[in-house]
């Protein structure tokens, strides 16, 4: 059968890209079986995605930082600190949400740009510069929460970001209508863009997969979108967190694949010397990537504070390492120049699924850490092996 052969070559050719999805599928399957279907229940998946949110946005940011061969350790406590500032502005100064959120996002961007300044202009290694940031923000978060202790956020609009769901308008057979609509639009959009993409490639005599394979791909991805939508619509529909993740993915996917600046980021990561000689301003790219990291840290802080409905003294602890782990599971390369937004998100979901599944199974925290460590190591080993094979 040519179709089966086609599928085989397709998989072996793209094993690095598909590996992550396969791993995620296997993890879902194993946990679903072990928990008698509890894992795949609407409620659990909805919670899983919501709890992955604040790490997922950090993972996207830090993925780009790693692509340009740097690292950022300060993001966890920066997120925690900015979350606390948000709580203070809301509760102690009584500012409205629509003012607080832009302020926090701007503060985050400024903090990120400052890291960029230290790395690009002053020339401090990113590891050291952001380790200093790690200490400073950790101190800062303790400082601002010292008197009050945990700051409870009593603001429904703000708390909805981490806990609320988009309005339904109507329930159809117990399913969330707007969520179904969004899923349907997503599928239509995916099919449309895939077909037009393929048409273009054919027009320029590009190598394309056979028609059957293409149909199979369309069907497969559409089914996945449909399944996720169906599962979420069975509970409360899409949460605001999921919508925010989707927006971040859309914006960053567009930025990295379609814009001049995005291309420059990968050029700098791939070969800084060649990028410089191609007229690319390497310092500017460093500023942009760290600035975006700060922005996403702020977003992460908002998501986390809102989800907890409180700002705590320890908020942000180890976020940075979870995000870095997610980025590596998602296939970013420490050598620079390689990494995808979708990969980082999948990496974050893989890690969140492990937590969620093991919690359901009642696996002790000690084993949870060890298993996650093993998965991280395996992901990178897989990446290194397939890369070597590719060369």
């Amino acid at each position, binding site marked *: 059968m040519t179709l089966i052969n086609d599928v085989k070559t397709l998989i072996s050719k793209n094993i690095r890209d598909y590996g992550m999805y396969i791993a995620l599928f296997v993890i879902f399957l194993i946990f679903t079986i072990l928990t008698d279907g509890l894992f795949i229940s609407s409620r659990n998946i909805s919670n899983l995605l919501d709890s992955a949110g604040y790490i997922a946005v950090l993972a996207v940011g830090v993925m780009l930082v790693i692509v340009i061969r740097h690292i950022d350790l300060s993001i966890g406590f920066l997120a925690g600190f900015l979350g606390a500032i948000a709580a203070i502005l809301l509760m102690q100064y009584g500012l409205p949400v629509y003012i607080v959120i832009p302020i926090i996002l701007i503060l985050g961007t400024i903090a990120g740009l400052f890291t960029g300044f230290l790395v690009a202009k002053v020339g401090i290694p990113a590891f050291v510069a952001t380790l200093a940031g790690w200490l400073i923000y950790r101190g800062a978060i303790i400082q601002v929460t010292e008197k009050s202790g945990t700051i409870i956020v009593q603001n429904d609009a703000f708390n909805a970001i981490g806990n609320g769901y988009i309005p339904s308008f109507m329930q159809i057979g117990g399913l969330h209508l707007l969520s179904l609509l969004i899923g349907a639009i997503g599928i239509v959009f995916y099919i449309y863009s895939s077909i037009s993409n393929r048409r*273009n490639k054919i027009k*320029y005599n*590009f*190598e394309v997969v056979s028609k059957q394979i293409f149909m199979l791909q369309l069907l497969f991805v559409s089914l996945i979108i449909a399944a996720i939508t169906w599962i979420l619509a069975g509970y409360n529909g899409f949460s605001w967190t999921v919508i925010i993740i989707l927006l971040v993915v859309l914006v960053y996917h567009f930025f990295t694949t*379609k*814009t*001049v*600046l995005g*291309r*420059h980021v*990968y*050029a700098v990561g*791939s*070969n800084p*010397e*060649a*990028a*410089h*000689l*191609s*007229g*690319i*301003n390497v310092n500017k790219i460093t500023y942009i990537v760290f600035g975006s990291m700060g922005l996403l840290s702020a977003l992460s802080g908002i998501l986390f504070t809102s989800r907890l409905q409180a700002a705590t003294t320890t908020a942000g602890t180890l976020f940075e390492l979870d995000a870095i782990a997610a980025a590596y599971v998602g296939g970013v390369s420490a050598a620079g*120049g*390689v990494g995808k937004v979708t990969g980082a998100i999948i990496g974050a979901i893989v890690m969140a699924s492990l937590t969620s599944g093991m919690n359901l199974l009642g696996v002790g925290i000690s084993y949870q850490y060890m298993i996650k460590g093993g998965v991280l190591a395996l992901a990178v080993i897989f990446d290194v092996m397939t890369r070597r094979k590719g*060369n």
Partner: protein
Amino acid sequence: MSEYILEMNQISKEFTGVKALDNVNFKVKKGEIHCLVGENGAGKSTLMKVLSGVYPYGTYEGDIVYEGRVQQFNKISDSVNTGIVIIYQELALFPDLTVYENIFAGNEIKQGGVINWNETIVEAKKLLAKVNLDVNPETLVKDLGVGKRQLIEIAKALSKDVKLLILDEPTAALNEDDSENLLRLLDGLRKQGITCIMISHKLKEVISIADSATVIRDGQTIGTLDASKGEITENTIIKNMVGREIQDIYPKRTKKAFGDKVLELKNWSAYDHKLGRHVVKNANLNVRKGEIIGLAGLMGSGRTELALSIFGNAKSYKLQGDLLLDEVPKAWKHPSDAIKDGIAYVTEDRKGDGLFLLQDIKSNISAANLHGIASKGVINDNEEIKVANGFKTSLHIKAASLEQLVGKLSGGNQQKVSLGKWLFVGPKLLILDEPTRGIDVGAKFEIYTVMNKLIEEGMSIIMISSELGEILGMSDRVYVMAEGEIKGELPIAEADQEKIMQLATQ
């Protein structure tokens, strides 16, 4: 015992199908200074690597007879243990360690596994006196100039009881005083009975110090000259170095019409902060419209540095003098400034700083001019494919598809991608740095053909090349560089291999 301390007989060495050494015979008498001369890539360094065990026994053919015995060096320490020490052009010192730590690095004075630092310092002082270097052994190496570092390398060699000292272009980075000092020292070592092999491009040095000189060309020994018979003269050496027939693989340009000066440099100097010296000194040069300028010279003569200083001062040198583009003075601060004004630079080291090996062909071709395929910062993928396809066809880039990773292409095709990338910028002046290094004859011819076409369309080219044949076959005018200076300008009618080599080895 024979008069020879070293006899290398019938040495051959192949690198994936390319013969780097072809039955080389090389004999060195005990106690002499023997110079090894030849063009870049002639095989001198390869020969020394075979001798020192960098290429272990078994990876080459032929015999090494040293002190009367056939040797089988499997690693560098094997050759060091017999008293053969090689000092490379790029010194292997630790800049952040002291002089005495450096001298005894890897050869520490130990008592029961613990280093005796006091003894080390005392010994270091003795060795420093031997090489006439008056520095405190506790000085950090990074605080010393290149000349003194060179002497420390020699002191390090002496600490290993060297019998045969090999120096790879020891004076290439030295100024005149330091060079003379070094040569005096070598003369002193000769009197103490140490044999010395020196690779050098500077013929005056060779003439002044060598007892014998062996010329290597294209991986073969051309001949050994003996000073006592009066054979070591500039003329004989140069004749031996260049006496190759130039094959006519260079396509002819039909139309030759030169326009106004596109680029002119006046008293142009560039100072490198990192090296702490001038890499370009007082260069005067001009390029006219529709002209190929050949920039000849040996490795390290400052040609690449000159190109980088023109190309938006990519290495942030301290510049002096004037650069005029179409008679207008320019002060570019970044490569992007130069690109905007129509300069393109195809680098020498295409893998190191030219291409993005992990990206595909189309991304590489568009990399220097993404705005050319984008509107408002958003890339038009179709436009990119169209552009890349255009260059793939016109430059005959052989690849399955435009989505092939550039790292997987052959050298010739990589070079064409590099060229395509810079042609897409639409330059009026194209600087090509060793445009055909490491690529096969067919691809070479294709690149020459493209160059001719570009010239006929009114572009100007500066071509840096170490291949004399290429310089003579393609250029309309030749500048020769040595030691960061332009030593001469030759109209193509007057240029020949001997003249260029004479200027390049000054």
